[in-house]
């Protein structure tokens, strides 16, 4: 976070996203939001509450339940002069939009030899533990990370959410913005003044020397919790949030890995073939000869997410799991 801030308030992550949208909609008349129940209802999570009052139903546009269709409409509108922000209520529903996002949005610029551009944002959610079961709890961002032509943002604080959302909207490319459903009420300091955060710059959420914990989105708080626990055991953990998984700030990750020589990567996506694999590989490639041990990956258990609370809780990475992994890594367990 910048050093000199005037008038910093504590607001929630949901409010931060709404502010970013409202500011960008004021700044640029081409920006508009579309999705299911975004207008009067302000989305299922109420994050957009009030936007329709300021901007009217044409710029906060309720759609039918047609994720593929309205994502495709956003692609076309983006190509022809608008800057749409598509709202996909649950990240689990992105399966319906993969063709539009991957075969269309991500490729239009390249396939046209750079002639057409697709400046759009898809806002969607990730994160479990809401007892929403297997079709409403997934963190599927790894799919989009795999696709050239897309950018992928995973904010972990209100400050980051606002600054990154503004950059995402101003970006000339399709950007997918994943918000953790469980963090909408998380509060944090956010300056009243205008600011943006560039895509592609990791943030060191906590400095430390003994172990690096690379964490994304919901897992940043988990990592910080684990770091606090480790501190009591005399272990100094550095917590790094890449903030955008593509573009990826490899340098910051690798430098920290070189410094601490032990790394844990935590992400709420399924643990196999997920974001942790790429992050671990990038770190191993860049800091191999400085590492004391293989990069430890922690992701969601490789099972569909169960409804029953004790089962669901067992699938998600916890502070304790990260704490213990760090101790094992340091041989202090």
């Amino acid at each position, binding site marked *: 976070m910048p050093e000199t801030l005037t008038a910093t308030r504590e607001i929630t992550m949901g409010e931060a996203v709404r502010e970013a949208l409202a500011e960008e909609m004021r700044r640029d008349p081409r920006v508009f939001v579309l999705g*299911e*129940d975004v*207008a*009067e*209802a302000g989305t*299922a999570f109420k994050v957009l509450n009030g936007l329709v009052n300021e901007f009217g139903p044409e710029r906060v546009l*309720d*759609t*039918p*339940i*047609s994720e*593929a*269709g309205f994502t495709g409409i956003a692609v076309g509108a983006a190509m022809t002069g608008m800057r749409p922000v598509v709202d996909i209520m649950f990240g*689990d*529903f992105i399966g*319906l939009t993969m063709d539009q996002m991957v075969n269309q949005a991500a490729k239009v610029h390249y396939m046209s030899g750079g002639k057409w551009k697709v400046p759009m944002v898809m806002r969607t959610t990730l994160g479990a533990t*809401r*007892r*929403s*079961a*297997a*079709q*409403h709890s997934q963190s599927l961002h790894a799919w989009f990370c795999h696709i050239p032509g897309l950018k992928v943002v995973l904010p972990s604080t209100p400050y980051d959410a606002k600054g990154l959302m503004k950059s995402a909207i101003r970006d000339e490319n399709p950007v997918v913005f994943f918000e953790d459903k469980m963090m909408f009420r998380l509060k944090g300091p956010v300056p009243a003044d205008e600011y943006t955060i560039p895509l592609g710059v990791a943030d060191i959420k906590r400095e430390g020397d003994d172990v690096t914990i690379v964490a994304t989105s919901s897992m940043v708080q988990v990592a910080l919790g684990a770091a606090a626990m480790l501190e009591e055991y005399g272990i100094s953990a550095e917590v790094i949030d890449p903030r955008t998984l593509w573009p990826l700030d490899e340098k910051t990750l690798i430098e920290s890995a070189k410094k601490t020589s032990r790394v844990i990567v935590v992400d709420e996506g399924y643990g196999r073939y997920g974001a942790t694999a790429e992050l671990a590989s990038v770190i191993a490639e860049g800091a191999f000869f400085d590492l004391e041990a293989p990069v430890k990956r922690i992701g969601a*258990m*490789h*099972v*569909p997410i*169960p*409804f*029953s*609370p*004790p*089962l669901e809780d*067992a*699938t998600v990475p916890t502070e304790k799991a990260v704490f213990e992994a760090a101790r094992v890594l340091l041989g202090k367990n």
Partner: protein
Amino acid sequence: MSTATFPTQTDAAAESERSLRMYRRMVMIRRFEEHVNDLYTRALMPGLAHLYIGEEAVAVGVCEALRPDDYITSTHRGHGHCVAKGAALDRMFAELLGKEAGYCKGKGGSMHIADPATGNLGANAIVAGSAGIATGAALAAKRLGNGRVCVCFFGEGALGQGVLYEVMNMAALWKLPVVYLCENNLYNEYTHYSDTTAGDILTRATGFGLRAESVDGQDVRAVYAMAQQLVDRAREGAGPSFLMANTYRFLGHHVGDVSRDYYRSKQEEQNWKGERDPIQVLREWVVSQGFPAANLDEIQEEVRSEMEKAVAFAIAAPYPPVNQVDQDVYA
């Protein structure tokens, strides 16, 4: 549960027997949902709950036209369909509370109850998510020649999803025994369906080659009669159909949706609740036929105590042991 052996409507005794059975089922659903509301409000139920109160006649009338081995697919608002198809209440409640004794061992919850024994292919939390499954079950029934029919329940919000039209097209091409049952309760969550649905719903279905009908979804007898026609037709090999049941959810989209003024008026709700309550509508008809109201009250009473036992069972039931979490991922 219905069996295919009941004679036609012309048989008065059978008709009153059927009416009482449907009355009981509707009351079961109503009571079930009231308990869900209560469990949820008491923080005993995790997750979300989408109640079916007000729409009971649709599930009950349709399932009355089905054989036990016929299939259904259901939605996020699925408790009514499960009950109507014959699910056991105690195991349903147990599932809703995430208990091991539940239909899905607690892994599915409110939005995913499934039960091979009653032909329930599963509730689905993706809007229109079961349209393909239902159509595939009909394809299998046709190929295996087992005479089964599948009813695909969905809300009118699912009309926004393209996959529905893809599978209706194939069902029509291949004359599959499936009935697409659109529960038009006027709202997709918090948005009136007229803001999300252009053209004419029945014409859409006709355009894809389906027989298309609509029915008063608050009149269980009308629903049953129409459903029976369409199910019989499907079973005879005449192909798929589309039935729109016009109905209304009396409560919120989910249990937490309590301030609804911004999307619909209290007056509208009052009108439906006061004049179009499906249980009341049937009760009036039954009484008008000279059947004593006391018998209906007795049914109410029986259901009430049955329901309380089921809830108590579920509350007392244990959670699944944590080591079950990675069971059932692969068969």
